[in-house]
């Protein structure tokens, strides 16, 4: 990988990223189907270009919303940004740690207690025991779960699951928070608390990358990146970009 010239302010850099997938024209996801189709000679591979020459930079303390229709490659972009997926060409670089906010209750082990899940999830995110121990009181307090933290997670309601997940991600305070469509969680009071916390973290200088359709991004973010058909259609103040995006969607 090339060593990029590093601008002090920049925490996240995406440079000319193109992602192509080699996939079967008809989605093959079972061995049986693969064999049957191979015999029939019905296996056409086609190149599917998901992202085309995407470039942007995010500076420290910015809150950026990535908007776009379903299936335009937002999730793929997030995977590339977090370093899970290698792009076909171009590169993405992150200067700092990423803390992902997962979908409701995702990644929890139902049989384990809330406490055990905190440790397991944070360890998968790359935190050491010491770091988790330090943050533990804050996580438990923020989640408002009380003694339920010692019960197996499968006894939790969906709201409680969301609280736990949110509390873990938000308390670890990585430099970059990656948020994927989860702001509609828990009851109104907890939602308010989450927004409050997110605002506090922003004031602390943390960087946000949010993927969402909701209008809530208008109050939380200051910059929007609109992706359509694999390209960046617009990049600028969030209100302006969001309005252009909704207008475009209404036309269809």
């Amino acid at each position: 990988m090339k060593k990029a010239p590093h601008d002090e302010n920049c925490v996240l850099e995406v440079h000319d990223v193109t992602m192509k997938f080699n996939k079967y024209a008809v989605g093959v996801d079972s061995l049986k189907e693969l064999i049957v189709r191979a015999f029939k000679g019905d296996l056409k591979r086609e190149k599917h270009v998901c992202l085309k020459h995407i470039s942007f930079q995010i500076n420290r303390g910015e809150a950026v919303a990535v908007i776009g229709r379903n299936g335009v490659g937002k999730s793929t972009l997030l995977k590339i940004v977090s370093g899970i997926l290698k792009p076909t060409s171009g590169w993405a670089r992150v200067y700092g740690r990423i803390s992902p906010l997962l979908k409701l209750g995702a990644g929890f082990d139902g049989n384990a207690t809330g406490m055990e899940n905190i440790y397991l999830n944070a360890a998968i995110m790359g935190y050491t025991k010491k770091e988790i121990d330090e943050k533990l009181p804050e996580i438990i307090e923020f989640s408002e779960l009380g003694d339920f933290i010692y019960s197996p997670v499968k006894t939790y309601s969906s709201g409680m699951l969301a609280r736990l997940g949110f509390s873990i991600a938000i308390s670890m305070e990585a430099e970059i928070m990656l948020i994927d469509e989860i702001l509609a969680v828990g009851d109104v009071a907890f939602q308010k608390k989450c927004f409050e916390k997110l605002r506090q973290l922003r004031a602390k200088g943390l960087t946000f990358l949010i993927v969402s359709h909701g209008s809530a991004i208008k109050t939380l973010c200051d910059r929007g990146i609109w992706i359509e058909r694999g390209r960046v259609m617009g990049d600028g103040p969030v209100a302006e970009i969001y309005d252009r995006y909704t207008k475009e969607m209404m036309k269809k």
Partner: protein
Amino acid sequence: MQKEKRLHRWGQQAYLMRLLVRRNIKNQYYRSFIGVLWTVLNPLLNMLVMAFVFSSIFGRGEGMTLDYSIYLLSGNIIFSIMRTSTSGSLTCLVQQQDMLQKTKVPIGLFPTANVLSSLVTFGFSFIALLLVMVIRAAAGAYVFHWQIVLVVVLLPAVTLFSLGLSYFLSALYVFFRDLKHIYSVVLTLWTYLTPLFYTVETLKNDLAEKVMVFNPMYHYVTYFRDLLSGTIPGGTEHLIVYGFGLASFLIGYLFMSAVRNGIAAKL
């Protein structure tokens, strides 16, 4: 600085591994109120049932150098290392997909944790085996041999073999979800094709004896039983046992590395 960072990362991954292994073992015996005792009782009870059913058919068969109950149990617990690690690993990446979509973590850790927890289970089953051996020795049906400690030579080979297979299967399952059904059939077949409750000699079939050589589990099981009956397997047997282990490990590891990006895209 670089070195310190790497050490820090290794420490962190070792910690994650420990958590994963602990979770696997807890889940395995979850809700059984006798808890970890069950890890010892489970193979014992299985062995009792099988001994009861099969001892009159195979118990005094040709080539039976060990007491039948010991023969049964020893074969089963070695086979179980492979069985539990691979069947657990098969779905482990897909089960973690919500996390793996969002976090950069070496995916090989998950199948490895499964293999390690099978080894822990083997430790408990080994206690069960020792118990049976003591009982049979008291009845005069078995004599202890010191060679049993050489099981530590065998275990790395079985571990390598299981690791490779686990890497391969967990990666393949991401692409082909029907593998679950296919593999459970394969596993059943494999159980019956390995001399766990019969001896190869009782088959009285030359072809079967020749084909058996290609079954890695046959070698692992036989190696272990040789130790229990006081013989040390020869040099070629060591080559075979480690050859299978290394080959499986390399194939599994290389396969997983080759499709890593595909897994990331597919999950």
